């Protein structure tokens, strides 16, 4: 559905945010994983017609996005990473206003859309409250509600779970899951579990390039039998780093659990049933080493 070809972007200050990105994204939930500063938001904004790339093309369902941004905007739902609201405006008013901006100008349609979305995102009871006073979870639900106005085919959700507590995050992911398979939904995040829980397809973006692409299960399968772990004292971690290809370290009960990548089992290490997190960290660590 969404074809991204040779997309590069360099900011006026010289930062290269995207470097020859090629992606082909079908219908359904698509996870875009990457650390902070990987270029995720630039990519999301570029797809959302908010930025003109230096080079490359984006085609959605046969539509040249860069040439006719307004046509894409009619089919787009976008929840930016960080968004604010007008002061002294209630959830209902704001959704209503956004509905007009999205083109639903008929009064009856608008009422139906706004009220349905408020119901579906469970914001009906607070519809007349100012959004500025919402908690994080409520605010993100409002965000997804506005993104869904006008039944868009392309939904871009940029870092939606950052700052939510576990319960809120869980609820929000459930909500995303309900959007359905008929639409292209791009979920950009730096949290591995978001992708693991939701996305049948994913890519890892780092340093402005696509590092890895595929089904999470396939990617996990590739690391099977290559990830090993051990538990060391905190001050021994540096020594391990020197001798092994360390993917990640994590504290547990005052000691450090170290995951390493190796084709054979190193002495004193036990095998790990590799998860998506290991895939992700392995990719990043290879990238770091290459740099």
């Amino acid at each position: 559905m969404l074809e991204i070809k040779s997309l590069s972007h360099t900011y006026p200050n010289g930062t290269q945010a995207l470097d020859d990105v090629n992606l082909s994204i079908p219908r359904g939930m698509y996870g875009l994983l990457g650390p902070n500063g990987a270029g995720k938001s630039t990519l999301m904004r570029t797809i959302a017609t908010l930025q003109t790339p230096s080079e490359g093309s984006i085609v959605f369902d046969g539509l040249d996005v860069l040439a006719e941004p307004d046509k894409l905007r009619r089919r787009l739902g976008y929840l930016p990473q960080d968004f604010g609201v007008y002061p002294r405006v209630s959830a209902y008013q704001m959704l209503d206003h956004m509905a007009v901006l999205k083109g639903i100008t008929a009064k009856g349609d608008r009422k139906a859309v706004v009220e349905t979305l408020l119901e579906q995102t469970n914001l009906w009871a607070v519809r007349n409250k100012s959004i500025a006073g919402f908690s994080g979870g409520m605010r993100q639900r409002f965000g997804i509600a506005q993104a869904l106005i006008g039944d868009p085919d392309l939904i871009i959700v940029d870092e939606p779970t950052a700052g939510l507590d576990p319960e809120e995050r869980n609820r929000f992911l459930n909500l995303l899951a309900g959007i359905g398979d008929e639409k292209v939904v791009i979920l950009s995040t730096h949290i591995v579990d978001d992708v693991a829980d939701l996305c049948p397809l994913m890519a890892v973006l780092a340093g402005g390039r696509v590092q890895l692409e595929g089904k999470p299960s396939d990617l996990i399968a590739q690391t099977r039998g290559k990830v090993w772990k051990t538990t060391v004292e905190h001050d021994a971690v540096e020594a391990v780093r020197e001798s092994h290809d360390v993917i990640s370290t994590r504290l547990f009960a005052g000691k450090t659990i170290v995951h390493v990548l190796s084709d054979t089992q190193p002495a004193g290490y036990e095998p790990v049933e590799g998860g998506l997190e290991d895939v992700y960290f392995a990719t990043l660590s290879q990238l770091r080493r290459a740099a």
Partner: protein
Amino acid sequence: MIGKIAAFELRYHLKSPTFWVSLFLFFLLGYGLTASDSVQIGGLGAVKENSPYSLAILTGAASIFYLLVVTAFVANGIIRDDASGFAPMVRATPVTKTQMVLGRFTGGFLVAALGFLAVPLGAFVGSLMPWVDPEMVGPQVASYYLWPYLTHGVVNIFFASALLFALATITRSMMWSYVAVVALVVGYLVVTTVISGNPELQPTYARFEPLGMGSLSETVRYWTPFEMNTRLVPLEGKMLFNRLFSLGLGVLFVAIAWWRFSMSEKPASKRRVRKLAKKKAREEKIAAIPPTLGGSGIAAPETISHAAQFMARTRLEIRQILKSPGLSVLVLLALGFTATSLWGNQSLYGTAAYPTVANTIDQVRGNFQIFILIIAAFYGGELVWRERDNKLNEIVDSAPVPAWAMTIPKIIAVFLVIMLVNVAGMLMGLFYQATSGANEFGIAQYVGWFILPSAIDGALIAVLAVVIQALSPNKYAGWGIILAWFLATIVVANMGYSNPLYIYADSPSVPLSDMVGVGPYILGAFTLQAYWTAFAVFLAVVAHVLWPRGGDLALRQRLRRVRNNGIGKGPMATAAVALVAMAGLGAFTHYNIKVLNEYRTSDETEKLMADFEKKYLKYEDLVQPIVTDVKLDAELFPDERKLVVNGRFDLENDSDQPIRDLHVREGGLDVEYDRIDIDGAKLVSNDEEYGYRIYRFEQPLAPGAKTVMNFTSRIDYEGFRASGPATSITPDTTFVNNRAFSPAIGMDRSGLLDDRQARRRQGLPPELRPAKLEDMSATRKNALAIDWVNSDITLTTDADQVPIAPGNKVSDMVKDGRRTARFVSPAPILHFFSIQSGDYEIAERQHGDIKLQVYYHEGHDWNVERMLDAMEDSLDYYEANFGDYQFDYARIIEFPRYATFAQAFAGTMPYSEGIGFTSRVDGPEDTDFITYVVAHELGHQYWAHQVIGAGMQGDALTTETMASYSALMVMKNRLGDDQMRRFLKYELDRYLRGRKGEAIEELPLVRMENQAYIHYRKGGHVWALLAHRMGEDRVNRALSRFIDKWKFKGAPYHRSVDFVNELKAEATSEAERKLIEDLLEKIVLYDFKVTGSKTERDGDKWRTSVTVEAAKFEADGKGKETKVALAEPVEIGLFTARPGFGTFGKDDVILLDERAVKDGKATFEFVSEKKPTYVGIDPYNRYIDRNSDDNAKMIGEE
């Protein structure tokens, strides 16, 4: 610890943009006040821009506006912690409350004081600018800058810091601190305006006005220019008290802040706790139900209605702006300033004014221009950046909304706010009218003259502000650009460049008058507004095309986007239509201002005048024939703004030499001549640029020979001008004087460049001084350089207007829709007169064989009866004391308020709509300046229109000085001697103020040189003293004898000494002769004051002793004073009210005795029946007194 907190505060602010922006703005303020010669502190010619006096005033005035900045520094120190959420961490430290409060305060105060250094620095740099007139800059002395910085800068900032610190502590809100400070500034301005009009309160005001402006003006009130240029304002007496008072108040405010400041966070109120609990419960309930999405949503229709989006955006923008807290502050501020200017609005001589529609609207309009700009600039930035500031831009920008549906609603919202403020101003104006006795409200005029034009202006500025912000990389840069644009327009205007085709949103000014309305001037304003509106549409298209969308903020990226996506047909077409309209309107404007009319920048005008002088002033002394008879046939077409005059002058050579060449000046710039024919002479030179012709007689005109000049002239106002609208002929009123439409014979000094700086710039001597008193050759011409003529004027105008010209009206008839009247002078009149026409109401009164008339605009009848009374009183006095009045009529004619003066032509006195007709003088305490001015102008019917002196030093003695004296005598007869103090004091104060501004040299009355403060002010005042000392009858006897001798006499004209000698002939003692010399031939000043008094019962009477101090000085032309011996009879009196104030009159006088007063201290004893409450020496200010306020005091007051 306090030091460390203060140091942190200092560092914090030094890094903030607020500090640097305010530094820059106040540097500009200081710079502008010295570098620009259009702004003059105190407006005194001889006081240097960088004198200690000017710098003290400048520093004090700047400190008032600095209040707004001080808030940012000190209030921030209090509010910052809570606002940033850092408070808990700060308060958890072991810093004590005292350390915190004092540290933060000290830091904020120091930053503010440091920032204020920008003012003296700016003033210093400004005074160094090469274009500043070197005569206006004195030696650069560091203490001149630093002393006022300390006494008025630092002390005021300490006071202000403490006050605002306390306010911020109490309100805990930046916004409310600002509201409070705005209210304070407005309140301060209102209170000071009120108090400065009431001299009784001055000493109190000087002591307790916390910003020290009152004590400053009190201290320097009677300083000479020399002192102002060299003396630091001393910190003593009231000034010292006042500065200590301010510091004390400051300390008090810091104490209040300390008392109210709390280190611990306030616990939430019970209500708030309940509210929070409710909110939490609600959120939990909502969270508990798992949300589900599903079902097919409603998609947008194929074609989206952009109009509906536009409407929704507009509604949202308007709602947001109306709810914004700053709006009410701005509206209140605007209303505050308007109210101050409306209620403080003064007509002539400081009297209140009746609210005419035009005047009220002018006041409102004038005050609002700057607010409109501020509002447009401020909200332009806020609105354009609102989505980005609120992080909403990504959501909104990714919606299918065209840019114009974002841009235009923002312009509309800004525009709407401007309209709201305008309407508020209009309501304030109406309220003022309703409470001040308006005859007419003029709602339609408000809409047509103010609301509509100001709406277009507002829209233009709104578009500019929005477009600049849309293109600007950030909000502050955008504001900076708008400020720069605004300053540029001021600079350009100061450079005299006024072509509105090249100054955005500029249009020719529309002067307002009840008599004419907006008149024909609206055409120019409307055309230019349409022209700029077309340009604004083009700008709006630019804003639409380059609207910042999403993350592409750099202009290069936006241009790339435009290249990629194209501009679109709609915007292209709109821009094209706008540019075509602009071109058309521009061409029409060009045709009007450059083809139909002449356009010159002020530099070009100045150069033209200078070149004229360089080329032709050499002919000034050329002997020319005089004009003896004038016959004019003037055809006025008001609707076409056209005047055609056929005229005939009879010329006669009254000299003793033959005249070969006749020099003729065409007069005004707007006149054209179809012909100027002179019998027996040929045109030999015609300088069209300067309108200067030379004719040569075939046979030189022999002494005593006569000839005739015939001419046809026309003034035809067409279209509109870039600036300086032609106001003499309008469809409703006409007021033209003969110099504008008829030729003048020979060269004289009228119409030459007179600004000293301009003259020097043009390489001319800085001033043209008149002939010396001893130069007898100057007696060939009189003060006005015009002749005595017999006149016969026929004026034809439209039938619905009244034609008026000097002379007895011998016929008046209407035929074919035209009205013709003929006026013939019964006695010689000066060849200087006006013709007027208009749709007038006429009030009439027969006074003996003289018909008195007042021609006025319908509704302006407040003072008409008073004017008729004044004419009767004046004529009675003058005929009894000076001699016969020469006409059978006297007419006062109202003319539009385009100019504000009254003028005396032969028997006809044009009097401006802006003064007199609208002055309010009917309260029991009001001073009747209307009668005073009428008496003055009628006085001129004798003094100028019967006798006129030679054009040389002292020539104003028998014109202006005597008219002033005459008016004072009329007032004395009307109100009684005891009421005279207010008039004498008025003239005295203006004389004292005037001599401070003297740039060349002060001269005694017999030698004065066109110095208004001497000929009007000192002149009338000292003649009143002469009349008091010598007796009115004796003085008037000399005057009437003088008139008899010189009445209607041509060359050689009399000199001031001839007049003084006539008076000296009446002197009967050495003391009187000495008095005449002192007052008329020298510059003498006195200083009388009461230094103590007491009164006690003595049987059934009261015994009062009064201690006085007296001194007498002689001054030279530069104001240097030398003490001289004093021995003169001076009045000392006992009163039951303060002389000259309120309703003081005869009944308040217990006793008024003339005593011999010598210089130094002396005590006088009096016995009276009644108990006195006030005592005074020279209580009516008959003498020229350096300080006239300490002459009368309450019993016991020192």
